């Protein structure tokens, strides 16, 4: 673990609110883009498949207490392709290398959707690296309930299904319909979809072997779910709670698949309450 190579050159760009640093970081020859902000205990957030690389405003709400790390996954947004990373399990090993690279022994680990799956997988490999685990609308496990195939949906259809409230839905739909007008944004969307397919095409966005390992993820875990999640219905939250050893489930009202984006106030409060407990 001592032999990781790194380069921390690159642009330091200021983004919104919490003074966000942007830099390139190379871990074992794979270059990724890292956003970070704040000061305090390390908080690593692993993004969802549809995340187009923006610093989400709700992350700033944590930057007062934590050093928040928010990387683009290999193959997503402004990160380079991770050549041989062909599963979420492989990607989890990449993130263990990243923790070594950053010198972080132990983090609060959070993830949404695909990132939630990744966080849970990582926590089964080296549970001691994770002080708390936060899974929001996490992919990675399967129930008998048939879920929509995101790969057959257009960007606009996916936006409709992702959000619950009228305002969030129509705003997301409008953005999706204009996606091709912004070449950079459109390219990130296409790359992210391709990278997601490579990680989760078959089996469809889950790992059948993961449930047998989840007992190893012993950190206190918050399962955060949108009550009206139509991409991954709330039943999946209960299934996570059955499989993980120490869980607390918080269901957020008036939220779809991305409770942190759609109801940031209630979601942040749930995270603060969870992290305040000992």
């Amino acid at each position, binding site marked *: 673990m001592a032999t990781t190579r790194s380069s921390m050159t690159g642009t330091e760009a200021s983004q919104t609110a919490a003074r966000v640093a942007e830099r390139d970081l190379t871990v074992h020859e794979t270059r990724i883009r890292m956003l970070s902000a704040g000061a305090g205990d390390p908080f690593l957030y692993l993004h969802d498949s549809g995340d187009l690389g923006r610093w989400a405003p709700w992350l700033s709400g944590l930057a007062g207490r934590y050093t928040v790390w928010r990387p683009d996954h290999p193959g997503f947004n402004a990160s380079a392709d991770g050549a041989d990373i062909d599963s979420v399990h492989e990607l989890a090993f990449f993130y263990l290398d990243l923790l070594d690279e950053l010198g972080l022994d132990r983090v609060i680990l959070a993830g949404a959707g695909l990132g939630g799956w990744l966080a849970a997988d990582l926590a089964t490999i080296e549970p001691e690296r994770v002080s708390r685990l936060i899974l929001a609308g996490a992919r990675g496990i399967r129930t008998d309930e048939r879920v929509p*195939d995101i*790969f*057959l*949906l*257009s960007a606009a259809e996916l936006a409709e299904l992702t959000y619950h409230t009228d305002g969030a839905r129509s705003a997301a739909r409008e953005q999706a319909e204009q996606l*091709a007008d912004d*070449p950079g944004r*459109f*390219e990130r969307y*296409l*790359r992210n*979809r*391709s*990278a*997601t*397919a*490579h990680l989760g*095409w*078959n089996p*469809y966005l889950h790992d059948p072997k993961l449930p047998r390992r989840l007992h190893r993820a012993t950190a206190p875990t918050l399962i955060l779910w949108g009550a009206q999640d139509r991409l991954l219905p709330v039943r999946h939250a209960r299934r996570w709670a059955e499989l993980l050893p120490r869980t607390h489930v918080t269901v957020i009202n008036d939220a779809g698949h991305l409770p942190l984006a759609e109801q940031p106030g209630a979601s942040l409060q749930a995270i603060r309450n969870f992290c305040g407990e000992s």
Partner: protein
Amino acid sequence: MQFFGFHLMPYPYLTDEHRGRPDSSWITLSNQNFDPRRGHELYQRYLRELVLYDEVGFDGVCVNEHHQTAYGLMPAPDVVAAVLIPQTRGKIAVLGNAISLRDHPLRVAEEIAMLDVISGGRIISGFVRGIGAEYQTFQLDPTQSRGRFHEAHDLIVEAWTRPGPFEWYGRHFKLRYVNPWPRPLQQPHPPVWSPSQGSAETVGWAARHRYTYLQTYSDIATLRRAFTEYREAAGRHGYTAAPAQLGWAAPVYLADTDEQARREAAPHLDYLFNTLLRMPRDMFFPPGYLTMASAPRVLGAKRGLGEGQNDLADLIERGYALVGSPATIRQQIEQYASELGFGIFCGICQFGSLGHEEFERSVRLFADGVIPALRPAGDGRA
């Protein structure tokens, strides 16, 4: 000019309820819409139609592979080729085993070699990736489509040509023993064709291997671009492309007059383009199926072929389909051939919901009024 007769084996009995539906005739259209009893009669008829191409003087017949769709009833093209061997004398082109979709490329190497030996060396082996929707059919990662295609191709050709047993250690396939029996009769192996809708990557690949590149479903502008790219690529590889390396496949329908041909073809072209080919873009092109060099252009376009309502007059005008009297079709093919330099024409004479009588009349008009005029003396079949 060599002439091939292409058959898609479409399912013609979708009701109005399905025509004009917003979704698709692929994957999600229930197979309860397929009636096996009518299917039996269809296969009998369609096989007779394929044999007719051979009888009236086409150089060969073409079959192809598609899955979970009313567009075509040939998920196993090698099966159709096998049925045709004793009933035909000319070439049989399997225009596209979708080798990326096969669990095991050696199965294709074996099947094509069998067909070639049984037929006495009459097989042409087309290799394709399979269309995007078929990565849903087999739940195969579309981002690996190109990699699997190239490795499967390399493995098949090597299995045909290199003395076995040998070891294969690739990214997608790892085999201790490659040693298929039988080997093909044609040496070093059956001719390989590369059918495509014109992706730059495929054109370049076909030119590099000196394979016959067959352009399907496109307007004349795309045809011109693809053939030009092929010739340029051939030049970069140090040779001049022969006409027999360039082919064009298009729906074609003939009647005594242009007006009659257009009137009779219209409902069946409509069924082909606006019902059978109907597919949402994200089904047609799943994530990673296209390279990032072409994805933004294709997926950012206002409308694709599988969406919305295609205007038939416009399609004919742009060359997506050839419809007219024998004289008109002869002039068009002759003019395009001299302008674009292709030496193979594949007529998709059966399309959409075309009935047998119209098909037979159209094919005989083509065989009598087009083929002899464009086939050089001494180039005819015995």
